[in-house]
């Protein structure tokens, strides 16, 4: 089996990544580069960076409405494939997996075994609720997932953030009548964590707004939002 030689020269790696995104690599060179990317995460990051740099060239085109028949054709094809879709979800990308894993008192081995036994459709709970917190560049930072029946919220931090030495992002739930509940500080390092939901008698999550505010790092008022609002949105029920 032939092995693909990985380019070690920094400038060459960047040049290949940029030309891959620009589209100037011919068929064979492009195929070789794609094989390199398969086993080279750093190269994939360079490609993503170049994709982002050149994206305005495509995003800036004047939109043109496609004919209605295109959607009908897409719909006909996707509808047939629907049953297999959830099986395509890689298990480590499924927030329910992480939630179940972290809540389990059994060993990791048992949790993984359960995942293999339980069909994917059953893993996805019907009452799952999710909100994605974006930053000002519209980049997702946190994914918060729970359900009406869960006592915990699972928070996935998608990127490291730095709010400075004396500031933190505080998470809240608010309702239209002015009721405000503090959930605590949001993590600043990428990863997964659980946060306990406070008791909320007579209130439901589907009516709540998820709010993130910028507060002092230590001893901020947990009863009232005093800092500037960074984000506010409702859960989506899945």
């Amino acid at each position, binding site marked *: 089996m032939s092995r693909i030689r990985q380019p070690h020269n920094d400038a060459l790696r*960047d*040049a290949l990544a*940029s*030309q891959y*995104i*620009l*589209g*100037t690599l*011919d068929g064979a060179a492009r195929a070789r580069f794609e094989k390199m990317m398969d086993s080279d995460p750093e190269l994939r*990051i360079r490609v*993503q960076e170049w*994709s*982002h*740099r*050149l*994206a*305005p*060239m*495509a*995003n*800036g*085109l*004047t*939109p*043109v*409405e*496609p*004919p209605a*028949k*295109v*959607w009908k*054709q*897409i*719909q006909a*094809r*996707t*509808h047939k*494939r*629907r049953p297999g*879709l*959830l099986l*395509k*979800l*890689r298990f480590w*990308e499924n927030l329910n997996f992480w939630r179940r894993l972290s809540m389990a008192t059994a060993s990791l081995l048992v949790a993984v075994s359960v995942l293999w036994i339980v069909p994917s459709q059953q893993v*996805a709970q019907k009452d799952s609720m*999710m*909100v*994605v917190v*974006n930053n000002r560049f519209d*980049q*997702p930072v946190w*994914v918060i997932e729970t359900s009406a029946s869960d006592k915990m919220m699972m928070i996935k931090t*998608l990127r490291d953030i730095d709010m400075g030495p004396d500031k933190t992002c505080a998470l809240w739930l608010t309702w239209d009548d002015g009721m405000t509940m503090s959930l605590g500080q949001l993590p600043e390092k*990428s990863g997964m964590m659980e946060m306990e939901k406070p008791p909320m008698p007579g209130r439901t999550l589907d009516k709540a707004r998820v709010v993130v505010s910028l507060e002092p790092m230590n001893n901020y008022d947990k009863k009232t939002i005093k800092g500037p609002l960074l984000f506010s*949105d*409702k*859960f*989506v029920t*899945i």
Partner: protein
Amino acid sequence: MKYGDMSVSELLMVCARGDEKAFERLYQRTSANLYAVCLRILKNEGLAQECLQEAYIKVWNHAARYQPERAQATTWMTTITRNLAVDTLRRSGKMAYAGEFEFENLSDESAEEDMFHSSDGRLLQRCLEELREQQRQAVMHAYYDGMTHGELAAHLDVPLGTVKTWIRRALEQLKQCLG
């Protein structure tokens, strides 16, 4: 939150769970932009519609692979669409250069004007303008017409090595300018 209130990134994440309504909303929100990408590269309505269809099938099937921490949703979808359009163009065995078809809004000039609508676009526009004319033309033809080094050399009637140098230096300069 209703589908109409979701961002493109949220819609994609919901699509990953097989939600067809989210997919329909995603299509309504993004198809005009992606169709413009297909048209700009393929310059043929029939091929562009096939390209758009394949792009959304791929988005639907691979929505679970979208990693929001790595790319904006629109960038991810545009990359899928553009790659499919370029592949279609190369499979068709002929280049469809601008000017051979009548699409009023497909000229390089209109694309450049539109880039000004976003701050990223304005910066990229300024950086492109700082390139030498030949370098800029090579970059624009590569991006919008899907030309490889060899095709650019033939189209611009210059040696292959010259085109490779133009492209490499142009991209280095763009990276430096974009910061």
